[in-house]
């Protein structure tokens, strides 16, 4: 496979995954806040700030955010690099350059997705379409991932797309955790009383489609500790960071025939990082959660850079 095309497929996977997470974050946060039990979680400003923080453009302190601006920017503003429409556009552009390698079924699904997002009326979206738009985006991405799994040859093309999907899944999960962690910190800062923040942890779990399964697994109200344990370290949780890393170790292996990969190779790095988290326990993380998040994001960037150096920048 061509190095240039491999790079595009990697990013196609990343953008598909990213659009899904942003859409879900938008949807879950907005709707769960509407009838939230405490005044902070219910505040429009608070929810909008959380959304902007998640997409990486946090608002300045005291800045008054306008709901329609935030929704438009995150949903359908092509000028914003983080917008859903931009992610879908880039996913499709990347697919375009590799359409000889991917199946017609996958390409058509991406294309349909693109036209759906492109043709979605801004007015409808802002007035009444938030739920419809975001759930459709989630469904389209589910279709795409099914097409990736069921219509592609399980070779390096598949592996590279899956590497992209998993890397971005881990990244977005961590970003969402970080955002919610930040939300909770803000609530606590504003109100010293012991507000029940389990709603925010529930929202977080719903943002990564893991709420119901967390209930089954833990059978207790979500707290900082058990939620983070579930979403980062539990290999039974399909969205956990550890699972994404494990999948990456499998897919990166397909790209090389080396039995003993050298220390400076991507395979070595992915396995090393995976092993680091595989043998971690939640009590270790709890001590300094902020540094842990920074560290894991840093590691994910290292993996991406290494893959680029080794495979894409021939």
């Amino acid at each position: 496979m061509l190095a240039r095309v491999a790079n595009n497929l990697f990013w196609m996977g990343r953008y598909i995954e990213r659009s899904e997470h942003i859409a879900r974050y938008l949807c879950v946060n907005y709707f769960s806040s509407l009838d939230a039990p405490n005044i902070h979680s219910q505040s429009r400003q608070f929810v909008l700030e959380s959304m902007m923080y998640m997409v990486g453009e946090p608002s300045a302190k005291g800045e008054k955010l306008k709901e329609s601006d935030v929704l438009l920017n995150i949903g359908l503003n092509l000028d914003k690099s983080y917008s859903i429409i931009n992610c879908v556009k880039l996913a499709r552009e990347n697919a375009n350059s590799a359409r000889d390698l991917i199946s017609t079924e996958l390409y058509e699904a991406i294309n349909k997705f693109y036209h759906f997002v492109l043709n979605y009326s801004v007015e409808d979206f802002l007035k009444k379409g938030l739920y419809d738009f975001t759930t459709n985006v989630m469904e389209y991405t589910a279709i795409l991932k099914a097409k990736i799994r069921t219509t592609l040859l399980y070779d390096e093309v598949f592996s590279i797309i899956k590497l992209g999907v998993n890397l971005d899944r881990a990244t977005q999960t961590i970003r969402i955790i970080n955002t919610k962690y930040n939300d909770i910190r803000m609530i606590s800062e504003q109100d010293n009383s012991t507000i029940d923040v389990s709603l925010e942890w529930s929202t977080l779990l719903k943002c990564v489609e893991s709420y119901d399964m967390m209930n089954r697994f833990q059978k207790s109200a979500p707290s900082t500790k058990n939620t983070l344990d579930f979403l980062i370290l539990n290999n039974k949780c399909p969205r956990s960071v550890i699972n994404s890393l494990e999948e990456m170790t499998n897919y990166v292996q397909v790209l090389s025939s080396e039995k003993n990969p050298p220390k400076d190779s991507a395979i070595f790095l992915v396995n090393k990082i995976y092993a680091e988290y595989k043998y971690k326990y939640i009590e270790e993380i709890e001590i300094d959660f902020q540094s842990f998040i920074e560290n894991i994001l840093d590691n994910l960037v290292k993996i991406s850079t290494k893959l680029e150096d080794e495979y894409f920048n021939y």
Partner: protein
Amino acid sequence: MSSHKRHPIFSSYTFESNFLDEVFGGNGAIKPVYKTLLNIYGSYSIDDFTKLNEKAKASFFNQGITFQVYGNNQTKEKIFPYDLFPRIIDSKEWEHIEKGVLQRSKALNLFLWDIYHDQKIIKQGIVPKDLIYSSVNYLKQMIGYNPPGKIYNHISGTDLIKHSDGKYYVLEDNIRCPSGVSYVICNRTALKRALFGVFNQYKIQSVTEYSKNLLDILETVKPKGVDTPTTVVLTPGVFNSAYYEHSYLAKGMGVELVEGRDLFVKQGFVYMKTINGPKRVDVIYRRIDDAFIDPKVFNKDSLLGVPGLFKAYLRGNVCLANAPGTGVADDKAVYTYMPEIIKYYLDEDPILNNVHTYHCSRPDDLKFVMENIHNLVVKPVDEAGGYGVSIGNKLTIEEIEKVKAVIKENPRKYIAQPIMSLSTHSTYIESEKSFEPRHVDLRTYTLLGSNKDFVLKGGLTRVALQKGNLIVNSSQGGGSKDTWVLKN
């Protein structure tokens, strides 16, 4: 008046006696081969057609068969206009076309070999020397070079029209990078999706095996010493208007689609940059014009090509399809010698007719052209896509004078032909919500390999969508329709 005329969908159908209609005879009677189709269409309402038309359009959008239109704020995607009424060619008529286009492709290949080797046809005075040497597409670097399998025009696109006399005429031979074959296939897909019921009523030749045949043909011209060749399609990139086609063909053949920047030449061999390092490339189906394939030899500013590619080719380490320098033979001035060329190399009479052509480079012809422009089509010899074409009877007096002045300036650049009466075909006109006659042509696709050839049983019927317009090229707002070749 037959029943179809009463159907509202045909209410605005008109007949002009000087054009042949493919669907209806002169008296408006349905031609036998279209009867079943029209019976089925008769059962649809205007509403049905509007919906079906939307379905067909959606099929193109979803398949991603679109081109970009650049607007003020954002680029918009559009599909090439497509219509719901297929063109039907019966097996006997097709047999004649197939033999004719294959004959032309073979003759052109022999002609190219000759003009790059012994030049017998020039020495014997059949084709004038100037015709070849004055062509910008004649590559001196190719003189004496033996392309793998002795093939120059691996892929030919032949443009045909049906004149009012009921005969097919060749308008052009395209043997540089003829495009459009992917539309043959996706037109079929779209029509199947919209009107699947119709397909049960006809035995239609399939068009899907083109890519496989193309790969077979390309592999027959692999360089010496290579067992299993690595073939690639070379595209200018995603922004090229034919990018869909390039990716379609690469996918159909199961080969890599590469851009110039994915290839490099080392010690006379061509390699592509893969995730596991360099991989040698043996056959390149290039969709980049000669001028851009190698900045070391041709256009120095070309970013699309590969430095050193031409040298690797001349060394016989890689095969390029079509061969560089084929453009000299699809020059519209060479076209006029096709009957002689066919006779000379194959000792056969041409199966398909040539349109009589006046060479502005000949004083007698030039005089005739100047006096009769209003009855002629004037074309530049070396342009494609319908650019620079003037149709005499559509010009104002001032425009005629302008055309005359342009010809006088460079007579070698122009030929003129009588205005041909391109046949008309029922075509769904979206704005009118009805079927109306529109002028059509037919592009066929012929493949030549070493001891192997193939003609795609189908073709691209191009439609001039504007009423009365005779230029069908997509760059001039033309559309296309599915083309059915019937089985015996």
